[in-house]
Every structure is written in C-alpha cells, then in structure tokens.
C-alpha cells in the first residue's frame, strides 16, 4: 500500500549498515530512506528532518507522517516567502503567490499544532535555498513543488491511522492540488496533466526536494 523500501543500501551508504533498524517500523524505514538519500547527496550529517523521523513521541506513525508533511510545508512556505521578496513578479502572479504563501503558512501552523496536541514534537524548519532568477524560473519551480506536494500527501495518506487526521490531510492536499493548477495556468501548462495524480513514497519525495534542503 505504501512503499518505503530503500533499494540503495549498497556500498554507497555504508553508514546504514551500522544502524540496526530491525524490526523495520515505519519510522525505521522512513529514516533509512532519508539517510540513503542524504548519503547520495553527500550530506553525511543527519539533519532535523531525519531526527524527527526517528522520534516516536505519542501518536506513533501518524506523528511521523505529519512531521514529514510539516517539513514539506515549511519548504513551500519559505519558497513563496523568498520569491515574493526576491523575484520581480507580475501583479497577477504576485497576487496568487501571496495567497499560496498564506495557505502554506496556515498548513505549517495547523500541522505543528496537531503534532503537539498528539504529544509529538514538531519538526524544525529545514534550512533551504532556491535558485531564484526570474518569474519564469519561479513558476517552473513552484509547479514542481506543488505537484510533488500533492503526490507526497497522496502517497502518505493511506497509512494515516486516524480518520480525523486523514480528513485534515485530505483538506490540505486538495488545496495543494488547487495551487498546482493555478501555477500551471500561469505558465500555460495543463492544470491537470494526468487523469490520476501519482502518489510518491517518502524516499521519492525526499529525493525530489533534497536539492533545496541544506539540512
């Protein structure tokens, strides 16, 4: 249902062998995946994202999933905040970028609060960097981030145990899909490129966003 298996645990990631993650709980598999990705990108130090993934505070698996979502929302919020600050945007683009920024901030707040309510510890905001140049580059990256966000939520949601949390995740992912469509329209790209939005597992999502995360 939800594939977190990490196939890249060969010689490229020797540090993984030293960590006994058996039995592989979902947390273990998520962490192993993230470490594998980090090793591939040359980042040996374990960043806050991965520390959170190890945390098994209250709520168990659901807290891990929410923390994963929170990390993505931090990324998106920071992305729009910086773009609004650094990139020259048309009035039309600026207007919807502000709306999206506000939505992502609301998602961050709601997820962090939910995690605390469940007795967990919210992930810290990762340090991020984006290759901003002009509006076209911003829109292209925005499209990638929003599409990835949708796929990340759709990949993770079936593993959520609580029906209430699933409802919240659903409410958020629909909005991310709306964001994606709005950005695509602004680029004259098809708003709904496929009839079925693909789901990505956490390893795939981490690989997609790793270039922008400095841990």
């Amino acid at each position, binding site marked *: 249902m939800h594939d977190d298996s990490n196939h890249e645990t060969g010689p490229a990631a020797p540090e993984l062998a030293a960590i006994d993650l058996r039995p592989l709980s979902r947390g273990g598999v998520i962490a192993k995946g993230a470490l594998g990705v980090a090793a591939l990108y040359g980042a040996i130090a374990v960043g806050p994202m991965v520390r959170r993934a190890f945390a098994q505070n209250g709520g168990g698996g659901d807290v891990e999933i929410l923390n994963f979502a929170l990390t993505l929302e931090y990324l998106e919020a920071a992305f729009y905040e910086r773009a609004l600050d650094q990139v020259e945007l048309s009035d039309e683009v600026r207007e919807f970028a502000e709306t999206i920024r506000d939505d992502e901030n609301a998602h961050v707040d709601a997820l962090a609060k939910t995690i605390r309510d469940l007795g967990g510890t919210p992930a810290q905001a990762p340090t991020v960097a984006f290759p901003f140049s002009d509006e076209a580059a911003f829109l292209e990256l925005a499209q990638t981030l929003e599409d990835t966000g949708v796929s990340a939520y759709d990949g993770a949601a079936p593993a959520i145990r609580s029906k*209430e949390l699933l*409802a919240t995740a659903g409410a958020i992912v629909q909005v991310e899909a709306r964001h994606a*469509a709005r950005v695509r329209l602004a680029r004259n790209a098809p708003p709904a490129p496929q009839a079925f939005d693909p789901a990505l597992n956490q390893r795939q999502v981490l690989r997609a966003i790793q270039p922008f995360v400095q841990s």
Partner: protein
Amino acid sequence: MSTPDKPDDLGALRRAVADPMSRRRLFAVAGGTGAAATLLAACGGDDDSEMSGGGAATTDTTAAMGDGDALADFGEGDIGILNYALTLEYLEAAFYADVVASGLFKGADLKLIRHFGRDEADHVVALRSTVRDLGAKPAPKPRTEFPLDSAEEVLELAATVENLGAAAYLGQAPRIRNGDVLAAALSIHAVEGRHAAALNTLVGESFVPDGPFAKPADAATVLEAVQPYIA
C-alpha cells in the same frame, strides 16, 4: 424561488458548495435524500434562518460520517462509495461531452474542456473496473440533461460541479476502508481539485474558495445538488 417541480439548478448547487452552515443543518436535520429534497425545496432562497431544526454542530471533517443511509442505494461500504463516485463521474463526463458538442467554445477553452472531459471519462472507466474487480455491480450510467445557454454560464456550472465533486471525494475519504480504494480516491480527488481551481480562475473566482483547508461535502448534500441534472 426553487420548488420541487422547477428546481433552481444553480441555486441549489451554489448553496451546497458555498454555505457550510447550510450543509451542516441540512445534514443534521435531513438524514436522507428524501427529507433533504423537501427541506431544500421548502427553504428556497438564501435565508437560512428560516430552516427549522437548528444546527446540530457536526464538525466539517466528520459531517459525512453518517452517509451510510444516503449511499444505501449504491451499495455497502466501499462499493457504495465507489458507485456514488462513479455516478458523479458519469455526470461530469456527460456534461463535458455535451459542452464540447454544443460548439460554445473554441481555442484554448475548448482544449481545456476536452481535456477535463477525458479525465472524467478515464475516472468512469477506472471506477467501473474497480467495482467489478470487487465483485459488485457498477452503478448504471444516468440519463442527464444540462443547461447550455452561454459559454459564461457553462463555465460557471462547470466550476460549481467540479468544486462539488472535489468536496464529495473529500467527504468520503475518511469513510473508505480499503487502502487501495483510498489511494485511488485520493488520486482522483486531487485531479478534481485541479479542475475546480482552473475553472474558478477562468470565471474570475478564487482558486481556493475555502481558504487553506478545503471543505468536505456529505453525500446527501451532493446528491441533492446534482439531482436537477439527472433526467
């Protein structure tokens, strides 16, 4: 003013989508499509204070949890939800087919509408196969009729239907038992959200009308809202 004989099509839909209190009261008082029909027709205009029964305060996230009754005709559990979704997809696919055939659109708008129509047709195929794979009988294709008076009105109706469809999927997600069915529903749900956002933008409305958190709709409300289009 809406009556059972001459439903105010867009009015019923707009109320269902736009007014969470209306949805909440409707669900709390109605408990089934029959009662819902009477209630909605009796209320007519926008004055919700005339609705009796008071608002039992169900939260939006769990508003659809009592949908077993509303979906009873479609089947039990996940089958009922899939057949309900299939019915909505049949409606949407038929709508877009009619719109394309109407000749009201050309150029980029026509391309978008064709594309959305193909998406809905693909959803129909997928949902039908899923129901059959689960050993049940797929819901039949309903006969439909849509008002196609002007391009602007059609786009507004499309936007309204897509927003309602997205809310419908969101309302059912927490009720789905099978993980694979849930994954499929979420995949389609996201696409309906994309459709809704694109159409809202085309008609000059917000791409996120509910703000940062989309609102779910329960089956009774949705079925009532689309009833006018089932011939």
